[in-house]
């Protein structure tokens, strides 16, 4: 019995299994690749203010303000199973309140085919650098690092930290003038 229905069913099932196999092969071909590379990060201007955080508790919290330089060439990270890179610049530090603080200051989406050579001078942060309390003033060790989350066509979603981070300290006095 070879009705239209059974023929259609067979063709569809075969097409789907071929697609599934190809997708799996695509995933396998890139799963063991190393996506780590180097990034150059530097801070230009660093100040800290103490102002009420109206987006959260309305209490006075430390607000860091900085501009940074960033150089990295991510072109070679792209292959046929990388649809997009989600770059993010993280500030990591320790305060008396919290053992670990991680704040993303800036992010960028790079799709495959777009320019992946980063060269930024004196960039402003994209997000406010609010601390959870008053731990930024005179903070001795804040580490900036660049990471990326790889979005594949099909496969794993690894988060990779670039080699080359930058540590800086905040000034010991609050700034009162506008920045």
């Amino acid at each position, binding site marked *: 019995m070879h009705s239209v229905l059974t023929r259609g069913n067979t063709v569809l099932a075969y097409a789907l299994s071929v697609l599934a196999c190809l997708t799996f092969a695509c995933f396998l071909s890139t799963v063991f690749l190393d996506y780590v590379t180097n990034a150059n990060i530097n801070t230009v201007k660093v100040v800290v203010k103490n102002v009420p955080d109206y*987006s959260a508790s309305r209490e006075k919290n430390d607000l860091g303000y900085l501009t940074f330089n960033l150089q990295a060439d991510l072109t070679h990270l792209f292959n046929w199973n990388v649809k997009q890179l989600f770059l993010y610049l993280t500030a990591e530090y320790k305060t008396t309140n919290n053992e670990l603080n991680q704040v993303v200051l800036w992010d960028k989406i790079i*799709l495959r085919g777009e320019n992946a050579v980063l060269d930024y001078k004196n960039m402003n942060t994209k997000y406010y650098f609010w601390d959870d309390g008053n731990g930024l003033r005179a903070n001795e060790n804040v580490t900036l690092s660049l990471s990326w989350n790889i979005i594949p066509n099909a496969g794993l979603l690894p988060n990779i930290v670039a080699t080359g981070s930058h540590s800086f300290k905040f000034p010991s006095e609050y700034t009162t003038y506008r920045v």
Partner: protein
Amino acid sequence: MLFAMFDEVKRMNKRQFLYQVLSFGMIVSSALMIWKGLMVVTGSESPIVVVLSGSMEPAFHRGDLLFLTNFPEEPVKVGEIVVFKVEGRDIPIVHRVLKLHEKKNGTVKFLTKGDNNSVDDRGLYAPGQLWLTKQDVVGRARGFLPYVGMVTILMNEYPKFKYAVLGCLGFYVLVHRECA
């Protein structure tokens, strides 16, 4: 053709019919076992989710499939994509962690944002809620498969289509006999 199928059911004897019902039960129970097994292995209460909104575009579109894990020993980190539940909302949200503060006693609070949204998620959280904690997290996105979830979106949006598909499949499994 439908009548022919019904005729076939009539022609079956009791044993054959019972066998068909049992094999139908096998399919349903093995699907359930796979789902529950995945829950144990990944530690997440729903190890596979379908993306329902465009708030993470261009990374995830509507109908993409995400595989989640939720191992308690792995700390949540900034930059990870988490799936979380908010009180008063039925559907879990898939967004990225942008801020995280961990106290000395190990309690963690974090703030999320969708890649395609211009503001953070405080407006989406329950009234008065400023941070997410570990209890809100359903899982962390670990794997990605495009388009496959489109089927479930279709089924949820057109319930008649769902019942038609389920009915046809059930009927087919009950009636179908391997031709010798």
